[in-house]
């Protein structure tokens, strides 16, 4: 009852256009800010979620670009490695050690004969994604476990076996085959038994345990302590533009496919930044207009408010009444913006799904949280303005 009487006395109708402008500005501002948050979250989702990420994503094999200029010097010096380790986007650096001796593998079976010259590489165990209890070697062991790239098996199954009229092999079958490993050098020759214990996409060469490679290099190689020519790095985000820039600046190269997100990421970053900065500036101006509107309303009802206070209306009652007049519009704006974002997100989900890009169907919690924080800010600004101008009338 009191409110309906106050509504007759304190007319909020004056300056309607200003109010509508403030409301529209605020809606657009909110839409921009909330979309910025949602786009950022969708993109992070794409980068880091399980459906969009595989094991190769975090490990990059890096080598110096080999061309006429770098010919013969495309190796990593100590300071190159230290510099790599110091970059904050690189979490760990592992040296790929190539074998420096002649080796071959051959089949024991007559039914499935094969023979090939081969070379190995080794890498510290922390960089290997195959869990096998057989992955170990110590001096005196006759058995050498190996990890082969999936690509090797694919080449065999889908090209080689067809051309040679050989049976196709599954990973499990390959893991059962024991073959002979020969090392033949002028320092001597020795034979071992070898077996594939796992397949990996991470490093595209035939891997043996570091211990074996070090031992064999020491015993059978003519060149001692050769500098590494390839390293493997672990990074949180291979799409990080800083990483890509660093590689470029230092004449390094890697599997370009793994860093392809970098370009998209820069675009998304730009969109997100423009969106939220514009949104923030607009929100600021909208708030200013809204504040002015409140001020104007109170000023235009100055006499009524003064008489109300004279008759015993408390500043608190008047503040509560004015909050009820102004604040609900803010809540409505926020709700409408959230609905719009939710609809857009759903549309984006449908649209991107056709291109095999998976973003969430629903608006993120972070977007709702942001909306809530903005609502608190709006409440605070409303409250402060009303309080301030009622206090002026009370003097």
């Amino acid at each position: 009852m009191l409110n309906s009487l106050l509504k007759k006395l304190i007319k909020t109708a004056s300056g309607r256009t200003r109010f509508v402008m403030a409301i529209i500005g605020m809606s657009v501002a909110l839409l921009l800010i909330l979309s910025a948050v949602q786009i950022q979250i969708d993109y992070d989702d794409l980068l880091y979620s399980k459906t969009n990420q595989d094991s190769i994503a975090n490990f990059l094999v890096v080598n110096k670009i080999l061309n006429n200029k770098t010919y013969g010097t495309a190796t990593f010096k100590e300071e190159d490695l230290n510099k790599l380790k110091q970059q904050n986007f690189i979490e760990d650096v592992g040296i790929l050690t190539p074998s420096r001796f002649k080796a071959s593998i051959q089949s024991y079976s007559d039914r499935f004969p094969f023979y090939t010259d081969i070379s190995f590489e080794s890498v510290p165990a922390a960089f290997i994604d195959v869990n096998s209890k057989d992955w170990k070697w110590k001096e005196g062991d006759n058995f050498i476990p190996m990890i082969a790239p999936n690509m090797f098996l694919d080449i065999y199954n889908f090209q080689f076996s067809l051309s040679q009229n050989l049976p196709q092999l599954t990973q499990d079958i390959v893991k059962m085959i024991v073959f002979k490993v020969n090392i033949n050098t002028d320092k001597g020759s020795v034979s071992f038994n070898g077996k594939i214990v796992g397949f990996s996409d991470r490093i595209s060469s035939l891997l043996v345990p570091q211990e074996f490679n070090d031992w064999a290099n020491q015993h059978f190689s003519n060149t001692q302590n050769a500098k590494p020519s390839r390293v493997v790095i672990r990074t949180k985000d291979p799409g990080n533009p800083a990483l890509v820039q660093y590689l470029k600046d230092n004449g390094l190269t890697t599997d370009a496919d793994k860093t392809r997100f970098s370009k998209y990421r820069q675009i998304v970053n730009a969109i997100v930044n423009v969106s939220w900065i514009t949104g923030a500036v607009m929100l600021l101006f909208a708030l200013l207009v809204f504040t002015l509107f409140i001020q104007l309303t109170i000023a235009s009802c100055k006499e009524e408010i003064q008489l109300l206070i004279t008759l015993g209306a408390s500043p608190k009652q008047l503040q509560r009444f004015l909050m009820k007049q102004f604040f609900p519009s803010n809540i409505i704006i926020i709700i409408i913006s959230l609905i719009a974002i939710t609809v857009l997100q759903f549309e984006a989900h449908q649209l991107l799904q056709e291109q095999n890009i998976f973003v969430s169907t629903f608006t993120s919690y972070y977007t709702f949280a942001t909306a809530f924080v903005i609502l608190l800010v709006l409440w605070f600004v409303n409250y402060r303005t009303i309080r301030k101008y009622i206090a002026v009338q009370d003097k």
Partner: protein
Amino acid sequence: MQLFLFLICIFDTMQIELKQIVPIPLKDKFSQRNSDVWNQTVLFQHGEWIKIKAPSGTGKTTFIHTLYKLRHDYSGQVFYDDQEIKNISGDALAQIRQQKISVVFQDLRLFPNLTARENIELKRVLQSPFYDAAIIDEMAAKLGVANILNQRAGLCSYGEQQRIAIIRALIQPFEWLFLDEPFSHLDHENISKASALIAEECSKRKAGFILTDLDEDAHFNYSKYLQL
């Protein structure tokens, strides 16, 4: 403890004390004549019906406004109980105006765009209501303004507005009622109706009032007469 304080608030009814009040704009004028109020220490005890008689231009309205804390341009002090009113403001002052002090201004101060009923109703619901809404009709009937209750206050005659202002003051709880020439535009018959209603409402609340007027009168059984 809180209940105790609450009981004190209810039973410890308010008294008003003036200490050497002199309105600054009228200072020279008052220094030349004797007054029972200006520049005196005066205590208005709870339940007293006080008549303050004063010729035109001696500061009746200034006095009422000073007591009601509408103006601050005076020397001296006014106390509600033992609290100086210059120290009461905002919500605390509103609380006193809703519960303890009601007023009929000389210039009435109705909202011209609200109806007579709405003007009264506003004061009724400003705090938790003391009376039901039906009492408005009862009082309006007693004062002969029932027919204009739904008329905009701005369109009512001054005499009608005066009676609406009186009803508005009586619809709320109070311990003190300030009346600033409340009958200036009423005829004898209406004055006796209005004073009867005021006396009835004050007795009902065991409330006191302070009435200012130009002349002597016998509308009430005053307990104290003062010359301004």
